């Protein structure tokens, strides 16, 4: 089996969870990876300080789309303040694969967008 393109990674890429738009929404953010032009946007509903629902949309490689899909399942139900603090290690743990330096930003784009949506500061997660 391929070390990067595991079955579940490809499964999330082909059938992403929580893909689409959400109207109305409380939080919204769009961003892109300048290295490759991949684009990602999120819409989120907030209830009692927690992410009540979430959709992502855009286009990207298998790694960026799988990262968005896999983490979206964890993000729903999480306090907004906690979402804002999630770092790169958390994202890569969720993915469960080794990410080379050249693909790191692919994996982290979703969390960059989530930081933008929750804090207004879309800095890359460290």
């Amino acid at each position, binding site marked *: 089996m391929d070390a990067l393109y595991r079955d579940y990674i490809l499964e999330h890429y*082909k059938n992403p969870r929580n893909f689409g738009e959400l109207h109305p929404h409380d939080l919204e953010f769009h961003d892109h990876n300048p290295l*490759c*032009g*991949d684009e990602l946007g999120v819409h989120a509903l907030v209830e009692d300080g927690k992410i009540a629902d979430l959709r992502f949309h855009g*286009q990207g490689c*298998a*790694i960026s*789309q799988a990262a968005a899909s896999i983490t979206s399942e964890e993000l729903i139900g999480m306090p907004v303040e906690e979402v804002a603090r999630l770092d790169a290690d958390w994202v890569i743990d969720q993915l469960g694969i080794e990410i080379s330096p050249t693909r790191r930003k692919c994996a982290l784009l979703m969390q960059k967008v989530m930081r933008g949506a929750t804090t207004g500061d879309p800095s890359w997660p460290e």
Partner: protein
Amino acid sequence: MGAVAETPAVDVRADFPVLTREFEGKRLVYLDSAATSQKPRHVIEAIDRYYSESNANIHRGVYALAREATDLYEGARARVAAFVGADEATTIFAKNATEAINLVAYSWGREHVSAGDEVLITHMEHHSNIVPWQLLCQETGAKLRYLSVSDQGELSLDELEDVLAGGRVKLVAFAHVSNVLGTINPVAEIAARARAAGAVTLVDASQAVPQMPVNVAELGVDFYVWTGHKALGPTGIGVLHGRRELLERMRPFLGGGDMISKVEFETSSWNELPWKFEAGTSPIAEGVGLGAAIDYLADIGMERVRAHERELTAYALERLPEVEGIRVFGPMDAERRGGVVSFAIDGMHPHDIAELCDREAVCIRAGHHCAQPLMRRMGVPATARASFHVYNGREDVDRLVDALRAGRRIFGL
């Protein structure tokens, strides 16, 4: 499509040391020459010899070593000029093609372009031939306009005529060969029409000079730029060929040493061409390396280089469609395109395609290729791109096709 030739016209792989490398037991297949070419031993040795035997600062040294370094650098300039049918005095060395375009945008553009004027470029330009003109137009209030690209990846001379007929175009800037589509644009025809309409032309020849015979004088363009590192030479050196009357009237680009005739407390006067545009210590070793690169290409013969590129491109255009779900962009006739093929595969993002090719030691590029407006025109976020040079052979295209098929299997396609 014509029949594919039996054997490539050139077999010089052994001259390129890096191509002996293997990754996990697989011979390196380098298909990214449109990004940067590999270097033959001749170029590497020329640079090494320069530093080992002849290094000194050029132009004003009175000792023999400095004269030797100056002769090597200026000798390279003379041969680079002759290589493309240009004059030495109007052949200016810059850092790269991007800097050469910025030189023209700054020194010519700011004097001649103003509010109400138009700068005309095309949808197939590299960012290096877009952003300098955006900056110029933002500063001056001129309007930036684009010529469209057809579904076949070509420009329309009728559309060019229509825009020129408006009478406001001051400059037409376009690629000789597209770095994404491979399209070879009709440079002489475009230049003639622009000149008839009173517009100046700038051609980005970064993808042309490395792979086909070029005669700048015959093309009839005003500014013609290219870069050394795509033409088997080192990084850090680019070339601007300009029309003498324009260059003479232009202000300098960067100020400093070497570009002056006399410096007084308040003002200075400028050195003659080409040094007026070469402030500071020159990229001497890079110039010597570029001289060795064009000597190497001239020894092969640019007609043969072009024939080799055409044959390999035709072979790639024949074999790539064997991969299921593939879409190839640009003209499908190898006569009308250079040695670059962009493609997409259904169900696989270009980044994943390039990653999976890397597993097979096949180097291709993925992304927007610094041509985001063109990506939007083509309706894709990115493409995968394979590009060829003299050191590639048909077996490299075979390895690419095998890698793409293996990648599709991993993706369960």
